[in-house]
């Protein structure tokens, strides 16, 4: 392959047919390019007197940010089909990094566009993307990639495949609402947010706007819009409490009871919040025998109050009894 210095202005960057990279260059890479320029040539396809970028989108973005005019490039041999070129772009990236779900969706769309058959896609590409090698995977990702406006957030939120069908089950207006909310969450919270909204919507048979306007939820959505710190955490907690009402109620009762138990010193009491185990564990601190004696005596004293009975009654409790 021929290597030459090309003018950045000769690249038709608006033609993104071979691009499936959603992340830009990070600060370290920008700084490196600022210092030493582009050392690894990008790959380009010559067409009609200009060039289409095949691989090296981050490098080109960094070069532009650094004010470079020229970069090294390998010109791909004429006669390669677009599918062959795209396969080359895929495998060059495949060996170097993991792809997000949004990037995988872009890859699937483009492989199909360049003429790769579903059978080959299933047998050859999906296993390499660590996706279930079957047709429903392709169908889900093709639907997802059609929502191009949502891809940056899906990429940032590092969605897993399991979240995609839930998200796709919402109508467009609700999908937009979810993406609007998701911006404020980290990736684990995004998955949980969508799962909770899916459950509540299905259980209550209500529109999402109605669920998000309920009295326990609405003010938290407003707080999020206002950018209040930790509003997202509070919203997920409130949605969790709505989705798990019995468990939340019992846990609240337990925590209120624990607060009333006067544990000595720096004592702590832990219990299984899933309520599967009845036993509690108690953490006590003592730095010498006398302290230990005192702590145990205080603990023993605390047993005389009724809170311990209440606590174990709740932990052994039966609903409605």
């Amino acid at each position, binding site marked *: 392959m021929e290597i030459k210095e090309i003018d950045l202005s000769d690249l038709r960057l608006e033609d993104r047919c071979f691009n499936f990279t959603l992340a830009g260059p990070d600060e370290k890479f920008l700084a490196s390019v600022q210092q030493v320029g582009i050392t690894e040539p990008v790959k380009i396809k010559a067409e009609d007197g200009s060039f289409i970028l095949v691989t090296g989108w981050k490098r080109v973005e960094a070069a532009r940010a650094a004010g470079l005019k020229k970069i090294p490039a390998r010109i791909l041999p004429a006669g390669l089909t677009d599918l062959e070129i795209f396969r080359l772009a895929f495998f060059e990236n495949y060996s170097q990094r993991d792809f997000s779900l949004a990037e995988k969706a872009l890859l699937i769309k483009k492989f199909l566009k360049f003429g790769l058959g*579903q059978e080959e896609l299933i*047998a050859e590409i999906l296993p390499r993307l660590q996706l279930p090698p*079957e047709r*429903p995977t392709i169908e889900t990702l093709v639907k997802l990639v059609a929502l191009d406006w949502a891809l940056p957030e899906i990429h940032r939120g590092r969605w897993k495949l399991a979240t995609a069908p839930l998200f796709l089950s919402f109508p467009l207006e609700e999908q937009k609402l979810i993406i609007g909310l998701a911006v404020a969450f980290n990736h684990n919270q995004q998955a949980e947010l969508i799962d909770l909204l899916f459950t509540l919507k299905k259980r209550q048979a209500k529109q999402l706007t109605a669920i998000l306007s309920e009295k326990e939820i609405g003010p938290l959505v407003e707080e999020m819009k206002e950018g209040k710190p930790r509003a997202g955490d509070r919203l997920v907690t409130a949605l969790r409490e709505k989705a798990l009402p*019995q468990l939340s109620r019992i846990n609240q009762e337990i925590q209120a009871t624990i607060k009333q138990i006067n544990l000595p010193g720096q004592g702590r009491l832990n219990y299984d919040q*899933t309520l*599967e185990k009845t036993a509690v564990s108690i953490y006590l601190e003592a730095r010498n025998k006398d302290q230990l004696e005192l702590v145990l005596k205080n603990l023993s004293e605390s047993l005389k109050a009724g809170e311990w009975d209440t606590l174990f009654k709740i932990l052994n*409790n*039966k609903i409605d009894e």
Partner: protein
Amino acid sequence: MFWTKQIKKIYVNRQVKNSPLVENILSQLSPLPFQVVNSLEDVQSELRLAPDPIAEGKRTLFLTKEKAFIRPCPCTPGAVGCGYWTLDINLNCPLDCSYCLLQAYFSLQPLTIAVNRRELEAELKTFFNRRNNQVLRLGTGELSDSLAFDSLTGQASFLADLFRDRKGVWLELKTKTASVDSLLEIAPPDNIVVAWSLNSRRIIASEENGSASLEERLKSACLAVEYGYKVAFHFDPVIYYSNWEREYEEVIGELLDRVPAGSIAWISLGTLRFPGKLKEIARERFPQSLIFEEEFVKAWDGKFRYPKPLRLKIYKKFKDLFQTQGLSNRLYLCMESPEVWREVKETNKKGKLLASPFSWLN
């Protein structure tokens, strides 16, 4: 039979293409064409291309051979096991229950029937000889429905002959069908237990696609009892919904009205539980189902279950209902923690001692 009519494609493993049983099955399914393949992978590569590979698997029959058939039931880590052995001759099930774990357990599995009966017979005889004088419970209904393909394979009567007169060795044929015809054509062995999974009418209608109705199941159970078989019932999964208490009470009432208590070998209880993967699959395959949107905790074994207080309430309700007929001692819990067992059984027994509800089988 409905289940054989739903078969659209047949694959035969090259290694068994000359088996008389294969010839027999193919002639029953004639004129459906069949294809000889080298391995399961050849079938799976076709299933992968289907819009719903799980549904396609239920329309695809694969006749093959298996290396081994008997396995200790894996139960679930941390739960009290009941010492059951699974006899896996058929893999995958033609019924399509929304909650069925096989959807997540198998990946791209056609309806698979192992036809190498000589090896099956040899393995069973070795198994019996090595465990002489032990009470053993084996069943074919873990990875499939025991009777759904019986009209095609005659498997139940084949197994009945192998188990007949083996004292202390129990074979359970577990089903959600009403296909007991072949069992009514043979003299009933004392140690064959025909078992039905039961659920409320609402759950059968909404979640157990392709299964027999409650009436049909109870009618078949009565027929089996009249003919001389022992029977068993599995309320698994019990599903929590707004009217669960009344609707399950109705089922138990009808069961106890119609089936004599003395013919019931055992009754198992298990509430809905599932790994996260099953929820993902079921939400897509059964969008109308609401059962996965209830309140669950991720329990000690990583599976989602109703919170323990609710499970206890459900088990105690069932126990009370069976107590009226003196049957509560024949109840056992499937895949439950020692804590829940102790609470339900009101005992301080430990470990495997908890799961010894079968003393009357000795």
